[in-house]
C-alpha cells in the first residue's frame, strides 16, 4: 500500500508538472520588466524629451490585468475607469499595451494621457518607434493619431514644438506632420500654412474650414500671407477659399488683386472670387469682366460663365459672342455647357449634338462627358444614354473627350470603356485612349486583352495589340515571351511583340529580357522593329549586336 501511494504521488506530481509545463508553453511569460531603479520616483513628473520609457512596469496595470481576467461585461469598463483614474504617467504605456488594439479603449487611454501629460505621450511614442527590436505591442501609431488630433486642438504650439524639436526625425514623424498641419490649419491658419511651406508639404489638401474663418477677418492679408508661404496644392485650395470670402466683401478689389498675380496661385484665387461673385451678382461680375483686359477675361470668363449658364444660357452665349474670340471663346463655350450640364445633362448633350464640329464643340462635349461620368472610384458603368451620345461625336470632339475622361471611365468600368473602343466610333479614338484600354484589360487577363485587340476596328487593331503586349511584357515578361514564342514564325503579331519589347527597352532598359525576346523566333521581324525604334545609341548598338549574333 505504501509503495502504491508512493507511485500515486509520483504520478500525480508528473501530471501536475506536465500541466504546468503545458500552460507555460501556451502562455510563455512576458519579457522581464526592466529594472525600475532608473525611473523617476515621481511617476507623474513630466518626462524629459526622449526619456519616456514605454517598458516601465506598472503595479496598477498588473492588478488591473488580474481583475480584468475575472471581470466580464460592464465591470470590465468600471475597472478600466478606476485604473485610469488612479494611473500615473508611468502606468500608461503598460495600460496602452493592455488595450490590445481596442480602438475605443485606446482613445480613452489617449484622452487620459493627454490630461496627464501630452509631452510624455509624445516622448513615449517616439521612444517606442525608435526602439530596436521594435515594440510591436505598443500602439504608437494609434495613440499618435489621437495625440495630434487633440494636441493641435488644445495646444498647437506645443505640438508643433514637439515635432520640430524631436531629435529623431523619423518617417513616422513626417507622417504626423500632415495630421498636425490639418489640425493646426483649422485653428491657426497662418501657422498651418507656414508649416506646410516649411515642411515642404506640396501635395496635401487639408480642410479649409479654418481658412474661411481666418479670411473673413482680412481677406487681403490672408491672400498675401498664403502667397508668401507657397505650399503647392494646399495653397491653391486655400486661395480658392480666400477668394470666395473676399468676393463676398469686395469682389472688384479682390479680382483686381488676383489678376495681378501671374501664376497658378493667382488663377486659383481669381477663380474662387469670380465664381462666388457671379453666383451672387451676375450683372456686376459680367460688367467687370467685360471691362477687363483680354488676358484677365481669358482667365476669368470660365467660372463666371459657368454660373451664368445655370440660369441663363442664352445670355451667357450672347456675352461670349460679344466679348471673346479665338481659343478663349472655345473655352468659354465649354464653361457654359458645364453650367447647363449641372442643371440638365441630357439637355446639354442635345445642345452639343446640334453644334458644328469645332474646338468649341469639343470643349462643350468635354463638359457634358465629365458630368456624365460616374465619380472616380465608384466602379459604376457609364449610362447607355451617355455611351450612345459619345458614339455620335465627331472624331475631334471624341478625341478631346477621351483625353479627359479615359482614366475615370476605364478605372470604373474597364470593360465598358474597352467595348466602346471596338464600336465604329472607337475608330476615331486617339492612340492613348486605346493604350489605356489595352493596359486595363491586359492587367486583369492578357488573353482576354488579346481577344479584345482583335475586335478593335481594323484600322486601329495593330495599335491595340501593341498596347496589350506592352502592358503584358511590362508586367509579366516571361509569360509574354512564352506567348510570343508559340506564334508561327511569320505571324505579324511577332512584330507587334518586338515593338512592344523595344518600347519597354527604351524606357526601362530591361535589356536581357528584350534580348531573349529578340533572339527567339523571327530575327528579321525583330530587326525591322529595331530599325523603327528611337533608342539611345548605346542601347541600339547592344541590341544590334545581339541580333547579329542570333542571325
Amino acid at each position, binding site marked *: 500500500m505504501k*509503495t*502504491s*501511494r508512493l507511485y500515486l504521488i509520483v*504520478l*500525480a*506530481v508528473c*501530471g*501536475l508538472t*506536465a*500541466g*504546468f509545463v*503545458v*500552460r507555460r508553453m501556451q*502562455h510563455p511569460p512576458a519579457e*522581464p520588466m526592466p*529594472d*525600475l531603479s532608473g525611473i523617476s520616483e515621481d511617476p507623474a513628473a513630466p518626462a524629459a524629451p526622449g526619456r519616456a520609457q514605454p517598458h516601465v512596469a*506598472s*503595479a496598477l496595470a*498588473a492588478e488591473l490585468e*488580474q*481583475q480584468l481576467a475575472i471581470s*466580464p*461585461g*460592464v465591470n470590465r*469598463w468600471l475597472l*478600466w*475607469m*478606476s485604473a485610469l*483614474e488612479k494611473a500615473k504617467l508611468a502606468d500608461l504605456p503598460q495600460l496602452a499595451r493592455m488595450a490590445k488594439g481596442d480602438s*475605443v479603449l485606446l482613445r480613452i487611454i489617449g484622452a487620459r494621457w493627454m490630461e496627464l501629460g501630452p509631452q510624455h505621450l509624445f516622448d513615449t511614442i517616439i521612444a517606442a518607434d525608435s526602439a530596436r527590436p*521594435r515594440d510591436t505591442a505598443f500602439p504608437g501609431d494609434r495613440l499618435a493619431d489621437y495625440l495630434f488630433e487633440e494636441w493641435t486642438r488644445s495646444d498647437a504650439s506645443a505640438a508643433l514644438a514637439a515635432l520640430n524639436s524631436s531629435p529623431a526625425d*523619423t*518617417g513616422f514623424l513626417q*507622417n504626423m506632420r500632415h495630421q498636425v498641419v490639418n489640425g493646426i490649419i483649422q485653428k491657426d491658419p497662418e501657422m498651418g500654412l507656414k508649416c506646410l511651406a516649411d515642411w*515642404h508639404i506640396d501635395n496635401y489638401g487639408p480642410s479649409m474650414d479654418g481658412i474661411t474663418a481666418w479670411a473673413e477677418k482680412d481677406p487681403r492679408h490672408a491672400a498675401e500671407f498664403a502667397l508668401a508661404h507657397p505650399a503647392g496644392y494646399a495653397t491653391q485650395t486655400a486661395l480658392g477659399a480666400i477668394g470666395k470670402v473676399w468676393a463676398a466683401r469686395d469682389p472688384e478689389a479682390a479680382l483686381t488683386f488676383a489678376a495681378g498675380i*501671374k*501664376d*497658378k496661385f493667382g488663377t486659383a484665387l481669381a477663380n474662387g472670387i469670380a465664381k462666388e461673385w457671379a453666383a451672387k451678382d451676375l450683372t456686376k461680375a459680367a460688367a467687370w469682366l467685360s471691362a477687363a483686359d483680354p488676358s484677365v477675361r*481669358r482667365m476669368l470668363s470660365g467660372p463666371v460663365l459657368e454660373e451664368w449658364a445655370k440660369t441663363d444660357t442664352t445670355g451667357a452665349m450672347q456675352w461670349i459672342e460679344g466679348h471673346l474670340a*479665338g*481659343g478663349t471663346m*472655345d473655352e468659354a463655350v465649354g464653361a457654359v455647357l458645364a453650367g447647363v450640364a449641372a442643371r440638365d445633362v441630357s439637355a446639354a448633350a442635345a445642345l452639343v449634338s446640334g453644334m458644328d464640329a469645332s*474646338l468649341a464643340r469639343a470643349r462643350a462635349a468635354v463638359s457634358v462627358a465629365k458630368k456624365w461620368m460616374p465619380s472616380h472610384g*465608384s466602379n459604376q458603368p457609364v449610362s447607355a444614354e451617355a455611351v450612345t451620345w459619345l458614339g455620335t461625336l465627331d*472624331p475631334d470632339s471624341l*478625341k478631346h473627350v477621351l483625353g479627359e475622361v479615359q*482614366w475615370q471611365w476605364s478605372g470604373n468600368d474597364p470593360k465598358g470603356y474597352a467595348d466602346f473602343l471596338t464600336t465604329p466610333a472607337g475608330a*476615331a479614338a*486617339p492612340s492613348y485612349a486605346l493604350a489605356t484600354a489595352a493596359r486595363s484589360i491586359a*492587367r486583369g*487577363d492578357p488573353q482576354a486583352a488579346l481577344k479584345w485587340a482583335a475586335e478593335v476596328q*481594323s484600322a486601329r487593331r495593330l495599335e491595340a495589340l501593341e498596347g496589350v503586349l506592352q502592358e503584358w511584357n511590362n*508586367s*509579366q515578361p516571361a509569360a509574354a515571351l512564352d506567348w510570343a514564342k508559340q506564334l508561327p514564325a511569320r505571324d505579324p503579331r511577332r*512584330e507587334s511583340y518586338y*515593338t512592344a519589347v523595344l518600347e519597354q527597352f527604351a524606357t526601362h532598359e*530591361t535589356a536581357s529580357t528584350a534580348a531573349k525576346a529578340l533572339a527567339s523566333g523571327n530575327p528579321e521581324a525583330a530587326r525591322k522593329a529595331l530599325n*523603327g*525604334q528611337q533608342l539611345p545609341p548605346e542601347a541600339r548598338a547592344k541590341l544590334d549586336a545581339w541580333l547579329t549574333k542570333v542571325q
Partner: protein
Amino acid sequence: MTPYSLSTPAAGLPDAELARAAQRGEKKAFVEIVARHQAMVCGIAFGILTDFAASEDAAQDAFLTAWRKIHHLREPELLRAWLGQIARTAALGYRRRLHGEVVTDNFAEEADPAPQPDEAAADGDEAALVRDSLTKLPEQFRVPLVLFYREGQSVRSVAEALDLSEDAVKQRLARGREMLRERVTGMIESVLTRTRPTAVFTMLIAAAIGALTAPAVIAGSVFTAAAAASASAASAASASTAAGGATSSATTVATAMSTSKSTLTIAAAIAAACLPLGYGARMGMETRPPDSVRRPDAQSAVAAAKAPAKPDFSDSALYAEWKKLHDEHGSTAEDMPALFQAIADIKDPVRRRIFRAAQSAEWAELSPEGGFAFFMEKGRDSGQREQFFSEWMRRDPAAAVAALSGGGEGWDGLARKNLTEIARRVPGSLASLAAKMPKSDNHWANEVRDAFAILAESGLEAARAAAEGVIGPQREQALAGIAKAWARTDPDAAIAWAKALPEGVDLHNIIRAALLGVAATAPASALGRVKDVPPGGREGYFADTTGARVLQEAGKTNYDATVAWLAAHPESFSREDLLGMADAVTQRLNDDPAAFLARHMADGSLSALMPAIGSALMNQSGYQRPVIWDWLKTQPSDPALDQLRSEIINSAGYQNPDFALQIARDLPDTPEGKKFSDSLARSLMSASQMPHNLDSLMAQAPDTLKPALVEAALMGLNQKNFADPQKWLALLPQLRDEIRENMTARVARAWTEQAPEEAVAWATALPPGAERTAAIGYVTNAWAVGDSWRASEWVDTLPAGAERDKAAEWLVQAIAQESPDEAWDWAQNIGDETQRNSAMLNTLLSMRRRDPSAIADTLAGARITPQERAALLEKLDQMPVEATPPPATEATPIR
C-alpha cells in the same frame, strides 16, 4: 488523517486544530481549511448571488478575509460556522456592490462568454435556467438548497453552516424543492453538483496567502487537500471537471494500485487527471504581479500576491459619478436612452468615452435587443453602434448575429467589421450573412475572404460547401478565402479546385488568393507560380498586382528566402510587382540602413530591391536619406549603387529641397556628376510649386546646379504653370546653345496652349530669320495639337515662303495621325521639296498604320511625279510600322 495524506501534516486534523495552526501563521493549515470548506463557502455565496463566477469571487474574498482575521476566531471549534458567516457577509457585500453598479433588481452579473472555471461544467442554457429559477426562490430556501447539493447532500453540514437545526434544514429543502418546478429540479441538482469549486479554487487561495512555494510541491499539497475535501462529498464525480474527476476517484485508485494488474492504465489516468491541476497551478501563478512591483511589507505582500481581488470602486470619483448618473437617470433598460443622452452631454472626453463604453456593456446586458434597435436608428454614430455590437458579441454572439441578419441602418458595415469574429464564434451564420452583404466600395476589403479562410481552418469540407453555396457579390471573396486557407496545406488541390469552379466569378482572383496562402507557408513555391496568373491589380493603385501581393506575403513569411529567390530570378517581376517588398524593406532599411544596404550589395539583391527602396525613400524611410547618402560617399561606382544614388536624389529633390541642395554641393563637376545634377534639378522642378520656387532655388543653388535648374524649369512648363511669358523668355539666353532651340520650343508650346493668339503674335514679331521661322513652326505645331481648325486657318493666312512651309510641315506633323487626309493635302502644298517629301512620308506612315489599303488610293490621286511617288514608296518600305520621322529640318520634334 485522510488515508492518502502526502506531505501536509495539517491534513486530517480536526477543524479546531487547523484553526489554531492557522492562527499561528501556518499557511498550509489554512490551505487545508480552504480545501475542506470551500464548497460550503462557495455554496453560501452562490445561494445569495446565484452566479457561479460571482460566487467564487465572493468566496475568495471570504477566505482572504478569514485568513486576515483568523486570530479573531475565539472558538476554533466553531470554525465552520464562523466561515459561513464570513461567506454570507462577503456575498452580501458583493451583491451590494453589484446593486449599485449595474442592476437594481437582480443579481445577474453577466457571465463572461469565456466560461469561468466552474461554469465550464454547466453550459450556458443550464446556467441561465438555474440562475433564473433560483433567483425566484426566497433566500431562506435558496441557500439551504444550494448548500445541500454543493455539500454533498449532507443535511448536517448545511445545518452547521447556517446555524440551523437539521429539521429546519430538511423543511426548508422540502419547501424549496416544491417551489421549483418538477422539470427544472433535476437539472438544477445536476448543475449545482457539477459546479462545485475544485482544487483550482483552493490553489488560488493558497497562492493569495503566499502558501505556494514550488509548483510540484504546491500542486501536490493542494491536490491532497482538495482530494480529501472532495472525497468527503458523496458523489462529487463530475466528469466535466478534470480536477474533480481526479479527486473523486483518488481512494479507489489508491486501492487499485496495490492490487490491480492494470497499474499502467491507472497510472496514466492519474497523470492525466493531474495535468489540469498543474495547468491551473501555473495559471494561478501567472496572475500574480511581478516581483518587481510587490510591496515589501507582509500585509502588502498578501495583497499584491493574492489572486484577483474583488474590485473596489469606493475610492473612485469616476465610479461615484457613474453611480450618480444611474441614480439620476435610472438603471433599467427603459432608462438607457436617457442615460445615453446624459453621457453624450458630458464635455470631458475621458469621462464621456469611458462612461459610453461602460454603458454599451451595461445595455448589452440589460436589453441587447432594445439597445441594438436604439443604435441601429438612422443617424446614430457608427462608432457607438459598433461599440455596442461588440459588447453584445462578447456576451451572446449567436443572438447578436441573429439580430444583425435582420438588417437595418449600417448593418453591413457592422457585419463586415465583425465578420472574422463571427467566423470564429458563430460559424454557422457566416455563409448566410455573407450572401446578404452588398459589394464593398473599398477595393481593399477582404473581410469576407478572411472570414471564410478562418472557417476553412476549422473544417475545410464544410467551409468549402458553405462558400460554394454563397451567391451574390461576396461569392468570389468567400471562395477566395477557402482557396487561401486550403493552399497553405495543399496548393495543388486548392488551385485545381479554383480552376474547376463554375463561371460567374473571376477565377484568377481565387487563384491569386490561393497563391497568397502558399506564400504564407512556402514563399519560393508561391513566387514561382505567380506567372501562371494574370498580373491583375488596378492601375494607379499601389502594389496590388498579383506579384506585389504575393511578394508582400512571402516577404512577411520569410524575408531572406524571398530576397534570395528574387536575386536568383532577375526580371521575373515587374517594377510594380517589386513594390510589394516595400513594407519589409522599409522596416529593415530604417533599422540599420548601412547594414541593410551592405548586405544586399554583397549578396547581389540590391537591384531587385531597388523599386521597394525607392518607394521607402519616398515614404517612411525618407528621413534616412542623409545617412544613406553618407554611406554612398564611401562606396565605389557600381550600377546598383548608382541606381540608389538616383533614388536618393529623386526623392530628396521632390520632398526635401534643403537636403537636395546639399547633395548638389557634393556632386563632382564631372560628366557623371552632371548627370546626377540634371536628375536632381528635374526632381526639384517636378514639385508642384514649380515654377513658383525657381527663384528661391536659384538663390540657394550652387553654380553647378543653376543651368540644370533653368533647363528643368523650362522642360516642365505647361499651360497651367506658364502664367508669365516674359519671365521664361528672359531665361532663354542663359542656356547652352545646343539646348536653347529646344527650350524655345518648350516656351512656345506652353504659351500656345495657354493663349495661342498671343504666342503667334510673339513669334511673328521676332526679327526675320531662322529663329523666327523656327518659332512659327513650334507655335503652329502646339496650336494644331490643341485646335487644328484655327491653326490651319492661321497657316493658310501666311504668305508662301519658308515660314509658311515650316508652319505647314509642323501642322502636318501634328494632325497626320488623327486626320491623315487633311494632312496629306497640306503636305502636297509645301513649297520646299525636302520638307514636302518629309511631310508626305510622315502622313503615309500614319495612313499605313491605320489602314494600309488607303495608301495606294492616296498616292494615285496625288499631285506628284511618278519619280516622287516611287521614291516615297521605297522610303515607306524601308520604314518599320512604328517609325514617325520628325520634320525633315528639325532634330527635336515637340512631343
